[in-house]
């Protein structure tokens, strides 16, 4: 087991390093630099009073005058900075200085809450809250719905549910988001287009939208694994020995189906994480994804790489957790 985990962790580290390299190369092929881009008038206006000397000092400070490979190693491992001190890179958890929010490092922007607030009010806190709340919503609603529709398979309830889910899945989330904003903000005036995130009612729309597609998937998965568990021979035996349908359901089918449902929960979670990125962009939600959109516009190299890194961390470690869980739950997997 330990051997397995060690092996996977090495692989994850390799994957993370490659992700960083890929993003690094991609983002440095975008023409321009954090303070200037061809044809970007907005950026040019903001930096119109920055003279060449300051620009040169900035370049030196952020290490942008170094050759590309040095910049990458500087980001990854660390380098001796201009003042002669060695500053450690991402291997020590230092995500580098942000060029957009000058004077603050990336981890500072992402993890430090505003003064007088708890960690939940930082960028990370917002994203974690959004994703966990949606995840709870999806799990608590999705599994019962799936189980119910399998129990009454073929009934009107089952058919209606599956039709509604098919329809909902085919509508993209951001269109739903637009419609939601149109109806609730423009039409009914319940919320503002510019929400105040400290009030819970503004969270309803993003969470509902983020949950919809994973919810539909989970209901389908739950239904399918219930039906699968029902078709086992031992169920027929249980029924033959005189248990009622409901009794077999609780005693035999549900525990078996739950195991296979549980293994699907992590993919659902990862789906949520990936979708949260788009949802945050749509709603201007003050989390990770929003910071990414801002950073893209300003070519904030360290910020873009830092956020990509954190997303990749989340997804790969969730994967590792999933594989480990598989092995713990299913004895057949342990040998191989």
């Amino acid at each position, binding site marked *: 087991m330990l051997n397995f985990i060690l092996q996977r962790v090495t692989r994850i580290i390799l994957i993370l390093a490659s992700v960083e390299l890929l993003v690094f190369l991609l983002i440095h092929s975008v*023409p321009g630099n954090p303070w200037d881009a061809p044809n*970007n008038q907005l950026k040019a206006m903001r930096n119109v009073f920055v003279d060449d000397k300051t620009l040169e000092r900035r370049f030196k400070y952020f290490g942008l005058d170094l050759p590309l490979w040095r910049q990458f190693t500087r980001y990854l491992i660390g380098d001796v900075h201009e003042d002669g001190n060695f500053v450690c890179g991402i291997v020590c958890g230092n995500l580098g200085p942000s060029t957009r929010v000058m004077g603050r490092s990336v981890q500072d922007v992402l993890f430090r809450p505003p003064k007088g607030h708890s960690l939940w009010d930082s960028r990370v806190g917002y994203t974690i809250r959004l994703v966990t709340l949606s995840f709870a919503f999806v799990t608590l609603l999705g599994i019962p719905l799936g189980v119910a529709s399998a129990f009454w398979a073929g009934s009107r309830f089952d058919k209606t549910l599956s039709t509604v889910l098919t329809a909902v899945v085919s509508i993209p989330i951001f269109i739903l988001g*637009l419609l939601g904003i149109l109806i609730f903000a423009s039409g009914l005036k319940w919320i503002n287009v510019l929400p105040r995130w400290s009030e819970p009612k503004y969270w309803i729309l993003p969470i509902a939208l983020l949950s919809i597609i994973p919810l539909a998937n989970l209901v389908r998965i739950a239904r399918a694994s219930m039906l699968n568990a029902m078709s086992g021979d031992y169920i027929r035996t249980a029924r033959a020995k005189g248990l009622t349908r409901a009794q077999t359901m609780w005693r035999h089918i549900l525990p078996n189906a739950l195991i296979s449902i549980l293994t699907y929960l992590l993919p659902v979670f990862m789906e949520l994480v990936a979708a949260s990125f788009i949802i945050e962009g749509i709603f201007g939600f003050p989390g990770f994804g929003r910071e990414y959109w801002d950073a893209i516009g300003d070519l904030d190299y360290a910020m873009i790489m830092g956020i990509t890194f954190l997303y990749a961390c989340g997804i790969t470690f969730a994967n590792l957790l999933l594989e480990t869980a598989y092995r713990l739950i299913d004895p057949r997997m342990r040998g191989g």
Partner: protein
Amino acid sequence: MTLLALFAPLISPYDPQEMRVGLSSYPPAWYDTNTKDGHPDHFLGTDLYGRDILSRAIHGARSAMFLVLTAIPLTVLIGIVVGIAAGVGNKTVEMIFLRLTDVVSAVPSFMFAVIIVLIVRATPTGEVFGGLISLTLAFALVSWVSLARLVYTAVLQVRAQEFMEASHSLGAGMWHQVFRHILPHVSHLIVVWVINNIPAVILLEALFGYIGIQILQVTDGSSFQDISWGGLILSGRTQLNWNPFILLVPTVCILVISMSFSILGEYLNERLNPQLESSQVI
């Protein structure tokens, strides 16, 4: 939709680019507000610059059509070639492929797509077809991975079957096997993938429009030149509160298309996949 795209110039009542002073921000013809009544000549109203929204929506279908016709074939080509190469190739090819898919799938694919658009739009190629080419490339470079992985697993399954061994022992070469046995077996997967991903291409464009990343590098007023649903969404979003119809029109267009394709996809999946049992939904 195809018809709309082909005959866009004939159908649309007005030139989509023509701006008319004094006709700006009209609601649809059948809709009266307390400030402005609908203009009888413009069925779906006009935008801030007095351009007819119906015409713009119809012309937008052309952009969507162009994207589908370029991005999907490109992606399918890359996906099939790489997937089959990884499936029938030697260990090294397979290893490289698997690690590459690991890396790409570790990040939300949209993150890559954005950066690719930023790169391509700055090069001279980026200006081809009004900037749509950058979206084509972004889509192809990001989503070939999912298709390639699909093809790869299917190829492995096919290769494990006995008839492959039989054909090999009969002296069939690798190319013969690929074209006669493997391709027919994965074709239904590819068809379903294509159907399911056509809406994704259109959505990508709309999403870019929505988030406001312009696919063309222009910052003066003429940047409103590209006529696409994404562009319509962008202009609709900024005027959401006083003329929501600009937003609603492209939204409904996309909605209809993506829903019809997803129903078609489900139907094809049932028809083309002989192994699929009716009880198992996934």
